């Protein structure tokens, strides 16, 4: 059986060993307050709370986690606090859900706490379906116990004795790491019956998802755990009252749960001192796209997009001009470069037509076509719509068809209006968040980059030079008349005499790009 005494012994024994190892590796530094952080410019401006242990501890070692105060919050909560007090602290901290919607975790817990039932459940949402997102995965693979501890605390708070982690099967390492972590925690008596010798029992089981994006939606996820087809339920009851198998259920995101233990270690005031008033704490982003240093960054809420891209990410790759930042994945929007000074928090992003979402952040430069970006995300949504409700099932498909038409150069007058009308119907009439947010990539690009749509539709031109169908191959007067392009063109549509400038018959050209590749003087361009 685990006791507070034993926990301290393990910590005291393991901490020096861990520090030794870290010193040898040289990637970290130990601060005066005893906290261990990663070294380097990339990390300088970051504040790592959810990722506090990632790349520092050995994820397969529960002792490592304990060495850095792991499970001390659970001990504190069980011995010093009533469930109501645990919830009070959570409410005070104003930790908001990191899974996308930003709902206050304390309020959610309170709903389940107040609702009387013979059985309650805690679910950790580790479905992470946004393309390009990998923050939850990094936590699960790098610091699994922080999630387990967070779940156990949630369980104690609301009166649940069973937890499920719904993790996508495409994350085999996360699954393996979690399995091991659960086993170790059970062995130590930190999960299972009578934790720390108290009468609080809490067990955690894994459930593997099959990779449907919609199964990340809370109620679809519950259907899936119940063994049914993953389709969202109607919201006639709150899941905190009637969720999994009709019982009060708390569903929290991985990153949300990873924040939980440290809030009880350091207190709600400490947590509120980081970030902004309405969005306290930090957020992990997957910074990708045309940025010099891509990767996971964890920053205090309220940091501006500019700071994230330039001070942490080192600026735009190839020193091109930044055009936009896409946040929030397929449910998010494109933020134009002139709004780079927007602070990143739930409200500010929503105000400019995007969302925080789960933390995808894609940097785009002038070669990225905004219509094509919208098409890309719509393509994803159409693929992932569950097919239950009409606006999403039928409407997103029509939106995609129009976007495809536009990027292929067949856009017509009225397409923009059709897109806007569809967006309105889909977002206001869809059943779940997937449909309700599906048109954000379209509406935000229409809001900020309407000219690009118009250029595609009226002038049959792609200003970013990215839509293949709208490109025209053209030979400039740099041409030396070597005839190489004409000899290599598969459809023989280049004419010209030796040593004279050559010309492409654009009607016949199939846009294969061969001429551009073979031209020795770079005379072939696209326009």
């Amino acid at each position, binding site marked *: 059986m685990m006791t507070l005494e034993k926990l301290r012994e393990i910590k005291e024994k393991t901490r020096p060993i861990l520090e030794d190892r870290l010193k040898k590796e040289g990637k970290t530094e130990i601060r005066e307050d005893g906290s261990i952080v990663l070294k380097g410019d990339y990390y300088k401006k970051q504040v790592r709370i959810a990722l506090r242990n990632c790349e520092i501890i050995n994820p397969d070692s529960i002792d490592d986690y304990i060495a850095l105060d792991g499970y001390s919050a659970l001990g504190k909560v069980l011995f010093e606090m009533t469930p109501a007090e645990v919830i009070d602290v959570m409410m005070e901290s104003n930790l908001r859900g990191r899974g996308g919607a930003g709902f206050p975790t304390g309020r959610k817990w309170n709903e389940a706490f107040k609702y009387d039932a013979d059985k309650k459940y805690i679910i950790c949402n580790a479905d992470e379906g946004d393309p390009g997102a990998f923050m939850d995965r990094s936590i699960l693979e790098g610091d699994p116990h922080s999630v387990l501890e967070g779940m156990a605390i949630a369980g104690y708070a609301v009166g649940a004795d069973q937890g499920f982690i719904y993790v996508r099967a495409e994350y085999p390492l996360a699954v393996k790491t979690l399995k091991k972590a659960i086993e170790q925690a059970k062995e130590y008596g930190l999960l299972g019956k009578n934790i720390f010798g108290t009468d609080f029992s809490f067990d955690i089981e894994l459930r593997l998802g099959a990779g449907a994006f919609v199964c990340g939606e809370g109620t679809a996820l519950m259907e899936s755990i119940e063994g049914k087809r993953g389709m969202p339920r*109607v*919201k*006639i009851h709150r899941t905190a009252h009637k969720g999994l198998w009709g019982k009060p259920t708390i569903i929290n995101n991985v990153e949300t749960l990873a924040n939980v233990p440290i809030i009880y270690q350091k207190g709600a005031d400490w947590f509120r001192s980081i970030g902004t008033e309405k969005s306290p704490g930090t957020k992990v982003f997957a910074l990708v796209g045309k940025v010099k240093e891509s990767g996971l960054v964890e920053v205090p809420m309220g940091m501006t997009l500019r700071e994230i891209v330039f001070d942490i990410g080192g600026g735009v790759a190839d020193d091109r001009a930044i055009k936009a930042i896409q946040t929030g994945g397929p449910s998010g929007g494109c933020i134009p470069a002139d709004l780079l000074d927007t602070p990143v928090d739930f409200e500010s992003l929503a105000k400019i037509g995007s969302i925080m979402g789960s933390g995808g952040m894609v940097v785009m430069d002038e070669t990225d076509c905004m219509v094509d970006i919208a098409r890309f995300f719509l393509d994803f949504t159409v693929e992932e719509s569950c097919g239950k409700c009409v606006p999403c*099932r039928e409407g997103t*498909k029509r939106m995609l068809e129009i976007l495809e038409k536009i990027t292929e150069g067949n856009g017509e007058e009225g397409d923009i209006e059709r897109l806007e009308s569809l967006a*309105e*119907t889909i977002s206001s009439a869809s*059943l779940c968040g997937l449909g309700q947010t599906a048109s954000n990539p379209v509406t935000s690009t229409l809001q900020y980059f309407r000219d690009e749509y118009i250029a595609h539709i009226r002038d049959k031109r792609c200003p970013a030079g990215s839509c293949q169908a709208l490109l025209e191959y053209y030979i400039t007067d740099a041409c030396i008349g070597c005839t190489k392009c004409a000899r290599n063109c598969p459809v023989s549509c280049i004419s010209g005499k030796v040593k004279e400038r050559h010309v492409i018959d654009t009607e016949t050209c199939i846009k294969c790009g061969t001429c551009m590749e073979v031209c020795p003087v770079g005379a072939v361009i696209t326009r």
Partner: protein
Amino acid sequence: MVQVTINGIKYEVEKDKTILQACREVGIEIPTLCHDERLAPYGACRMCLVEVEGGKNLVTSCTTKVRDGMVVYTNNPKVINARRDVLDLLLSNHPMECLTCEKSGNCKLQDYAYEYGLVDGTYEGEKRNKEIDDSNHFYYYDPNKCILCGLCVRVCDELQCTNAIGFEDRGFNTIVATPFNQGLEKSKCVSCGNCVSVCPVGALQPKTKVKFRYWETKKVRTTCSYCGVGCQMDLLVKGNQVVGVEPAFDGFNNGLLCVKGKFGYKFINHPDRLKKPLIKKDGEFVEATWEEAYRLIVSKIKETKENYGAEAFGGLTSARCTNEENYLFQKLFRAVIGTNNVDHCARL
């Protein structure tokens, strides 16, 4: 009781009702394509949208409960436009075959298209193009007419409890299918036809050889004659011919039937059907009157009882008789003929 204001008029309604239920109770029409009072709320078709004051989005009235002080609009321009847009999307992925469709005249999609003034969907693009499953003996499924309201799937699951069908694939490609898409014939389907009875469009249709239009038929309420359960049903009668059966929703069977009641009606107009008693004369059955037939039965019973005694009789009655008829039958055997040799097919 709570007070709600619907379209400007105040009503007192029960606390646990949905907006849809409240509206229907006070006689306000709201279009629905996926709702069925017998089933759990589902919220898929989005036709029942209404506006609730103070809300960000429109809400589906079938899945939203009334609250005290709620102000609801069921037919303002915003609501009507949203419903028309939803219908437009449905019609844009629908074969417009009303002219030859068996469901015409009894189709909710057709009715709403008429009501909301839509000739066709306005979005051109891909339409669902999947194979019809006509492997079942009694009915067929045309996925291209299916609007995926899910009523069939849920009736089969929640009421019929057979779970023969479900959804396959997702998004735009979703269809109703049997496990592993093996077809209805090879599935667990018991051909009860309860899915067919709830399909709001022509996607699930009985296989009928007789051509008829709904407006040519009249409904005749009757009791199913196949078993003692006594389900209530409406015969669809065209001229003097029964062309279909629909379950009664106001009977105790609550809109359900079994395969016999739903599909086994062709005997009614069958030429071989016995309508008069037959008596064998010189090795040939010939038509007789009931008077003649009863007389013959009575004389044979008397004769047999005199010569061989009451124990020579055995009576077997049918599950198609009602309780009362069965009671009378055993009474006849025990009290009149004088034997306990009486039994019932349901025991065999």
